[in-house]
């Protein structure tokens, strides 16, 4: 019988972890005042959740390197952009003003 295989354990663990992080995010949304530190923490949580889903649910951890590179890159670049757009908001306004 295939019981308690590594696969199932990793999936179960990932699900629990993702639910906990989501709950923490919701707690932050309800309680924390906006700051760069909070933004940085949220960006890290986005990157981590994305990586967890990609590696274990989507099974990219051993997959084709090009797809892995683009997908992992997406979840590094976007959280970084969220943080940088907050940090350099005035510069962004100057760059995008019509």
């Amino acid at each position: 019988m295939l019981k308690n295989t590594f696969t199932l354990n990793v999936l179960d663990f990932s699900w629990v972890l993702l639910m906990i992080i989501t709950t923490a995010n919701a707690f932050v949304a309800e309680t924390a005042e906006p700051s760069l530190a909070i933004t940085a923490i949220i960006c890290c949580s986005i990157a981590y959740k994305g990586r967890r889903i990609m590696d274990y649910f989507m099974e990219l951890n051993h997959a084709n390197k090009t797809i892995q590179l683009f997908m992992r890159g997406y979840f590094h670049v976007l959280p970084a952009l969220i943080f940088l757009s907050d940090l350099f908001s005035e510069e962004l306004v100057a760059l995008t003003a019509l």
Partner: protein
Amino acid sequence: MTITAIDFHLNGSGEVTKEPETLNKIPGNRAVWVGIFAEMTEFALFFLVYFIAKAHYPEQFNQGPLKLNTLAGTLNTFALISSSYFVAKALASVRLNDPEKSIRWLWRAVFCGGVYLVIKIWEYHWNVDQGITTNTNNFYTVYYYLTFNHLLHVTWASGSLLWAIRQLKAGNYTQQNHLGFTAIACYWHMVDLAWVIIFPLLYVLR
């Protein structure tokens, strides 16, 4: 044959080997990945619009999330993460040659997709009751564009899960042949991934 956790690799395969099925391969097929990257690019453009709009209207983007229903957003995140988990379990079950179990996991995923849609529609009604519409301000315009676009993706991705259930019942997805199922699973995970970014952008960050 007795199989232990050491013998059975992370992702398994049709014959249960020591190598993951997706080792150095494209999970699913090329076509679905063209679609996935197109969708991810579309969402990335929406996110860029969000960054620029937030920089120009910081007060609206600071106050906007406070008036949204955080509980609805959180429950939707739970629903999508759970559905992704159920789809991954369904794929693992078909690899272990248990299509019935796979179908049960997929029905749970479809149920979560349905829960997401019900909550989102309820949330839109709740918003209107609070006086929040697409024209209220720039934050809510971006909110409606992003969330409605994502809702459409959840709707047709749920349809693809129903298709997978039908194929499993017909015996077209088996332990040896489930490439199409893997492609559908990847697409569903992409929809979940998009929400992983949308939820904090709209409900958490100010």
